[in-house]
């Protein structure tokens, strides 16, 4: 069975400054679980939004997504890409960016406000994926 790639975006329910410790906890749990399920990908957090890409078996992605959907630390989760994948882009699962960057947030925000124009949403999703790959490549995320 082939692997898939799923990308979702969501709004954070966390508030500053407790969010940093909460996100750390989330990452520790996710890293362990994703390793068990052979899921690769990346998470980014911008203090207002989350975005996560997951690569792996359909069943494993579904299992993780069920628990992610039930997580009260975010809301308005939208799956913006769910496609078959020939080869993984991410060697492992990492926290690709965590910080207050407006630039990073701008790559997520347009994807949350309903898919009015499918072509535009696909472009935005591709842009966000590219950003996550770029952050995850060669030495992880930004210092802040």
């Amino acid at each position: 069975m082939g692997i898939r790639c799923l990308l979702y975006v969501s709004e954070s329910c966390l508030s500053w400054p407790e969010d940093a410790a909460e996100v750390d906890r989330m990452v520790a749990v996710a890293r362990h679980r994703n390793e068990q399920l052979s899921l690769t990908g990346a998470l980014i957090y911008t203090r207002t939004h989350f975005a996560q890409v997951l690569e792996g078996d359909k069943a494993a992605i579904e299992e993780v997504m069920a628990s992610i959907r039930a997580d009260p630390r975010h809301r308005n989760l939208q799956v913006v890409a769910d496609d078959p994948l020939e080869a993984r882009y991410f060697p492992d699962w990492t926290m690709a960016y965590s910080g207050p960057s407006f630039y990073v947030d701008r790559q997520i925000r347009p994807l949350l406000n309903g898919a009015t124009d499918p072509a535009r949403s696909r472009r935005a999703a591709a842009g966000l994926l590219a950003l996550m790959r770029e952050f995850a490549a060669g030495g992880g995320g930004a210092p802040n």
Partner: protein
Amino acid sequence: MSRSQTAQSPAPVTAPGRLAYVIDDDRDMRMSLRMLLQEDEIDARPFLSATDFLDALGELKPGPILLDVRMPVMDGIALLEALTERAIRWPVIMMTGHAEVPLAVKAMKLGAIDFLEKPFPHAELSSLMGRAFEILDEQAEEGGLADARERLDRLTPRERQILEAVAKGHSNKEIAQELDLSHRTVEMHRARMMRRLGARRLSDVIALVASAAR
């Protein structure tokens, strides 16, 4: 209202010390950034090029840098790299018309705090400048701490003993008794300890000890 009265109206007052560096080859952009920053009570010192900025760097005090990406000769990314090489960690905010993803991520990995895409809302600039000054304050605190520890490490064990007693508020006479030294010897050690710490007053010493203890 007469002309002379208008001419006398006071210039906008900016808070002392709030200074940002604007590096952009576009004159209009430098002007408009200067005006925007002025509204937030931040003085802008403009530079026409990255090389001009590097030439002046030695005499500049730490401040946020608003840096254009596309400039002739030395671009914004090259300047970021040059700053990293010189271990300058002042907060840098990049600016460009449209930030391609690889470029934006490269800049942020090089330490830029964010990427403004022109034209940007004033609120975004204000918020970023606020963050930049917070980062500078944190860095200054860290620097002061490291400096205090480093200076305390220069003391001899005897000078350290005297420092501890002085910080507790003991007089030279009391210290002489505690350490079984002559009053003169205590005075001598105390003067040398102050000199090594670069402290002129007792309050300087106490502040130094307090900041090193944090």
